Structure formats: structure tokens, C-alpha cells
């Protein structure tokens, strides 16, 4: 494994090692670029993962202090936990469910397709489906996505079989066990899914793709990548010309270090990435780095989510098998007659008893709540993933008083549902309940959103520098050697789970950075 000197100013420094940063680090290393990846979390591999919901949460979740505001229910139910993401080498690819679907062509052009929506800060991406197609191909191959290439789909578990029957009873056509980055057969040196459940807690078989045990060690094996774990970045530094030059971070012993850099790529997920740019404010950039547009931290998106659980008169045992291998895509269309723009997917989802107790109806108690859990064994579940509206006022800001363990201002996450979000969620609840009732559900539960797992948009891409933070390569409009490499660069959220798109963008960005470095332009 490589080690680079703190004063080596020829390295690319990547902050974060998840779907964006972890993939970018490996892709650059494969091309011979020297990379230092700084990761706030520790290293955990399949043998370390714990198949117990709360214990695993304690091991992997990002639990640094955060505050919330706005009318979203998460601010009331989980005021200190706006997002359920991971602090570890490999980032949230440890926790993700594996759903890997491409954006649809029209979703790259939300403003053009939907038209202006009152209260929404819609914009077209500066890229489109044709531009992204070859990068999606590479991403699907990397992740071993089922139902792409010659890879078979996963078999359906009990939860899926209930879901499928309900969907088909309603006349839905696009219903299958998903395009999943979970092996249906041995692939890339990793084994096939054993239908164990606990996909959210880290796959102990390694059947689900995670950067933690694929891209990270592959990058390290090249001798071009050094990953420093438990290294929390505090600030990005720049010179008088406005170019970034180094990164200040706290190492695993809590000592402040400064790593010089030729290029800095920010991939700390959608809350931490803008927080870091804002915390890096200087005399030259008083509003934070790359923030001449005032869009850093704004347009925070988290998908229209929610769940539908239902109980039947006989057992389902939804926890057995792959957590999210089931999808219904017929509603993932733009059909404004439904009362909203954009679309949503319905995907199977199961929680264990401990998390079901925490998330079914947070704050709920008494027999209405407990009789639902009494039927846990007879329960089926699905999750809503839909496109939410970017709003300038939904944003990450620095808390005026509260500081984290390093003395850095913590982030506040403000989110108000847009009327379009509410209309879409209500439609999805209705359709989800109808699916289960069609199979004989005796009771259904429209369950509120969990802390956000899909965090997007706070350093968005834009054609015009005044509309966003970065250009079509993720390169910030203001600073040529500063890149955004995670989901915060999303211009809009689309209806699809974001990881495949984050990975495809990272592969594409690595290609661009390597070419520009070779050409000597950055």
C-alpha cells in the first residue's frame, strides 16, 4: 500500500470513500494517478459486520451531531438524525440496499420536461442520457448489476412474491426482482446472495457490491492509493490565486494535519460536502468555497419516500432474504394527470422487529401500534422512492452555536415538503395499500419517511455558473482544481435510487480528471 508525504503536492486528495469518492479513488489509481483518500470513519469488512440492527447502527452510522428544522416529520421524530448514512471506509455503500437503476432520459431535463413548478428550483442537468449511457454500462459491469449484461435476476423472496401478486392484480406490468448490485451468481471474485437479510447492516457474504471490499482494496493494490481512515477533514485551503492547495484534517489520534494537494475532490455525502465548503470560508471566499452562486448547501433533496406495510391473515416472514429485491416501475413516469410532476418507484423493503418498532409509527404507542407489531410475522413491506422538488430554502447551513468534537460548526438540515412531494407520496401510499389489499391484506400502514438515506443536490451541477456549484464534470465553476464527486452534484433527484448514477459519474469524472492532468490543464 502506498504512503504519500503530507508535503507531496502532486496528489489528488479525495474526501470520503463511498460510492463517489471510493470509486473515484480506485479509478484514478488504476490510471496511475496518485491519490490520498481521507475517510472520517474506520475500516470494517464483512467479517466485522453485525447482523443485529441496533448494534450495527452503533457500529456504522454517522452519528456526529446534527440539527434539523422544517416541516418534515423526520425533524420531529429524529431531530438529531436527519440522515441514515454510514461513517466508514466505503461509506454508505456498506449500508445501501443495492438497487441500481438508470435515470430515464426525461429526468435529466426536469425543467424542460415538467416546466416551471411554483416554489421549486428546477433545472436541467448539463448532461443527458446519451452522454451517460456508456458510463452506466461501465458502472453496471463494475457493480455486477442483475438484469444487465448477461446477469440473471435474483430469485424473489416471500416479501417480493406478495408484492408481485398485488402489483399484477392492479395491472402493473414492470414488476420484477430489480436491477440489483447483489450477485445472483458468483461474480468478480464475490459469491452469490444467500438470502440472509440484513443487507442494510453490511453484507457478510460480500454478495452485495460495496466499495469497502472492491474498489478500495483494488485501488490500494495499484500502489497509487493511500486511504487514511478516521481522518476528519476540517477545511480546504487555497492560495492567493484562488486555487485549492491543501486539506486540513484531524487524524485518528485527533492531531491536526495538513495534506498538500494538486486537486481536491469532495465526496463526503450531501450534508458533509457543503458543510465542508462552508466551513472553508476565507477572506477571499467569505461565503465558503465555490459559492459565488450562493447555491452551496441549497436544493437539498432526499427523495419522496415513505413505506407501506400491511398485515395478512397468514405468515409472510418478509425479513427472510434480500431486503430490497423487488420493484414496480409503472408509476415512475411523468404523468401530470396524477396531480404531480415526476414519478416514483415502489420497492420491496423489510425491517427486523427492532427497527420496525422504531420506524413503523415513530412516537406511536398503545394497542393501535402494538397490534400491528403483534402481526409482524404476517407483515409485508414496500418503500416509496420518488422524485422530490429541489427548493432553494431546503438547505444545509452551519449551526450558529453548536460545534462538533473537533470544534467545527455542525450542520443544520432544513427541509419542507413541497406540495408536489406531498401529492406524490399520497398517491404512492394509495397505490401501495391497494396492491396489498388486492392480495387480501387485513390492515395497512402508510409509514412516514425514515431519516434520509438518499441525500442529494446541495452542490448541484449547472450549465450556467450562477445556477449551481459545479459544471458537467463535477468541477466547481469557481475553482478549477476543486471537484464535487458525490450525490451533492445532482441537479435533480429523478425517481431512481442514486448510487448507480453516483458511481457512473465518478467513473466519468476520473476519466476527465486523468485526461486534464495529463494535458496539464489542472
Amino acid at each position: 500500500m502506498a504512503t504519500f508525504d503530507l508535503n507531496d503536492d502532486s496528489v489528488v486528495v479525495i474526501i470520503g470513500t463511498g460510492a463517489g469518492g471510493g470509486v473515484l479513488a480506485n479509478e484514478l489509481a488504476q490510471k496511475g494517478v496518485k491519490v490520498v483518500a481521507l475517510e472520517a470513519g474506520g475500516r470494517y469488512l464483512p467479517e466485522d459486520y453485525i447482523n443485529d440492527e441496533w448494534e450495527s447502527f452503533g457500529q456504522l452510522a454517522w452519528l456526529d451531531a446534527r440539527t434539523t428544522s422544517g416541516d418534515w416529520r423526520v425533524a420531529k421524530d429524529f431531530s438529531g438524525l436527519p440522515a441514515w448514512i454510514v461513517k466508514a471506509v466505503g461509506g454508505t455503500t456498506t449500508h445501501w440496499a443495492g438497487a441500481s437503476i438508470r435515470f430515464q432520459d426525461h429526468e435529466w431535463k426536469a425543467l424542460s420536461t415538467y416546466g416551471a413548478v411554483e416554489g421549486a428550483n428546477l433545472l436541467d442537468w448539463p448532461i443527458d442520457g446519451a452522454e451517460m449511457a456508456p458510463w452506466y454500462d461501465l458502472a453496471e459491469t463494475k457493480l455486477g448489476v442483475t438484469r444487465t449484461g448477461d446477469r440473471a435476476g435474483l430469485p424473489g423472496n416471500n416479501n417480493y412474491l406478495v408484492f408481485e401478486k398485488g402489483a399484477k392484480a392492479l395491472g402493473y406490468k414492470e414488476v420484477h426482482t430489480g436491477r440489483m448490485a447483489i450477485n445472483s451468481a458468483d461474480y468478480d471474485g464475490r459469491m452469490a446472495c444467500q438470502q440472509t437479510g440484513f443487507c442494510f447492516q453490511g453484507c457478510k457474504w460480500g454478495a452485495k457490491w460495496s466499495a469497502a471490499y472492491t474498489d478500495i482494496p483494488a485501488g490500494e493494490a495499484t500502489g497509487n492509493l493511500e486511504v487514511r481512515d478516521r481522518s476528519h477533514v476540517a477545511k480546504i485551503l487555497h492560495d492567493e490565486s484562488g486555487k485549492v492547495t491543501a486539506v486540513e484534517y484531524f487524524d485518528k489520534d485527533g492531531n491536526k494535519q495538513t495534506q498538500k494537494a494538486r486537486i481536491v475532490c469532495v465526496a463526503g455525502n450531501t450534508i458533509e460536502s457543503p458543510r465542508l465548503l462552508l466551513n472553508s470560508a476565507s477572506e477571499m471566499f467569505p461565503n465558503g468555497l465555490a459559492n459565488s452562486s450562493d447555491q452551496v448547501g441549497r436544493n437539498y433533496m432526499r427523495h419522496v419516500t415513505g413505506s407501506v406495510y400491511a398485515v395478512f391473515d397468514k405468515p409472510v416472514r418478509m425479513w427472510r432474504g434480500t431486503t430490497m429485491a423487488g420493484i414496480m416501475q409503472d408509476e415512475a413516469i411523468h404523468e401530470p394527470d396524477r396531480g404531480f410532476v415526476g414519478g416514483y418507484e415502489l420497492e420491496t423493503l423489510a425491517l427486523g422487529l427492532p427497527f420496525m418498532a422504531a420506524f413503523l409509527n415513530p412516537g406511536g404507542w398503545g394497542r393501535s401500534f402494538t397490534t400491528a407489531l403483534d402481526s409482524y410475522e404476517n407483515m409485508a413491506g414496500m418503500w416509496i422512492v420518488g422524485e422530490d422538488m429541489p427548493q432553494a430554502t431546503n438547505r444545509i447551513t452551519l449551526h450558529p452555536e453548536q460545534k462538533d468534537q473537533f470544534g467545527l460548526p455542525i450542520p443544520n438540515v432544513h427541509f419542507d415538503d413541497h406540495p408536489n412531494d406531498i401529492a406524490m407520496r399520497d398517491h404512492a401510499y394509495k397505490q401501495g395499500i391497494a396492491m396489498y389489499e388486492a392480495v387480501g391484506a387485513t390492515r395497512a400502514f402508510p409509514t412516514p419517511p425514515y431519516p434520509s438515506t438518499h441525500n442529494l443536490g446541495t452542490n448541484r451541477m449547472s450549465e450556467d455558473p450562477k445556477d449551481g456549484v459545479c459544471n458537467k464534470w463535477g468541477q466547481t465553476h469557481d475553482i478549477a482544481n476543486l471537484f464535487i464527486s458525490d450525490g451533492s452534484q445532482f441537479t435533480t433527484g429523478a425517481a431512481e435510487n442514486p448510487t448507480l448514477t453516483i458511481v457512473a459519474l465518478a467513473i466519468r469524472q476520473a476519466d476527465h480528471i486523468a485526461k486534464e492532468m495529463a494535458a496539464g490543464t489542472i
Partner: protein
Amino acid sequence: MTKHDLRGLTRRQLLSRSLSAGALAMVGTGFIAAPDAAWAVEVTTITPEQMATLLQMARDIYPHDQVPDQFYAVAVKGYDSEEKKALVAEGVAALDAAAKAAGFDSYVAAGWEEDRVKLLQGMETTPFFQTVRSGLVTGLYNQKEVWPIFGYQGESFSQGGYIERGFNDIDWL
């Protein structure tokens, strides 16, 4: 009833008293226990009556008729601490005061769950209620021993997952 008063009671008196009060648990000096002695919780800081009230509260907040008292007792055992003592004393006193105002001798003396739930609803926004309720979410449902009662099987990795053990065995669709 003070701790001193309790000392004079025989086991039979304790038993009949607790049953007449509608509580399932027996209250003794420094402990509460199941009438059949299947389980017992020793208290060292809060009073046995306070512990019995917490136990009844736990049952009323998350009532599962098929879950025995012992699991609820484990879930509220942590309130027997110096740190929680004041919260518990004030909370139980407020609950009992509300019960008296409603015509009951105490919260646990209200025989019907419906009546006790009304008393709890009256203090739903208090830190005492919210602490007890939110603590139960993990305190009760994260006990591995309680999972089988709900049919939940927990981890399956040690058994090779469900690929050959019924991941798709649904037979009634």
C-alpha cells in the same frame, strides 16, 4: 405506602394486595416479583411501588398480551438508578395524582387498561412519559429473547441464510 409499612406485610398480604390493585407484579421490600416467583427485579434506589408503576406503564404503553412481564421488567430495570431517581419519583407522583383526581387510589389501582391509558394520554408530552416510552422502543423490542414471541428470527448468517431455509416458502398466495 412507605417502605416501612411494607415490612409488616406477609407474603400472602403482598400477593393479595397486588392482585387486588390489578397489577401482575408482587411488591416486596426491595423487590418486585411475579406472583409465581418466575422472575424478580431487585430495586436499590427507587421504591418497589415506583418500579411496579413503571412496569404497569410499560405494559400500557406497548401492550403485547403474549409477552410475559419479565421482558417489561428488564426494559424498565434501568430506572432504578441515582440518575433517574428524581424523574421517576416526580413522574410516578404526577401519574398517581392524576389517578386520584380521576377517582382511583393510584395509577396501578385503575383496573381497566382503558382508564390507565387515559391517565397516560394526559401526560403524554411530559419528559417522564417520553423518556419511558422512547426507552422502551429499544428496551423492550431489542431483547433477543422477546423476538421469537413475534416470530422474528434475528440473524441467519450463522445458518447460511435462508437460501435453503424458506426465503420463498409462502404457500397461500
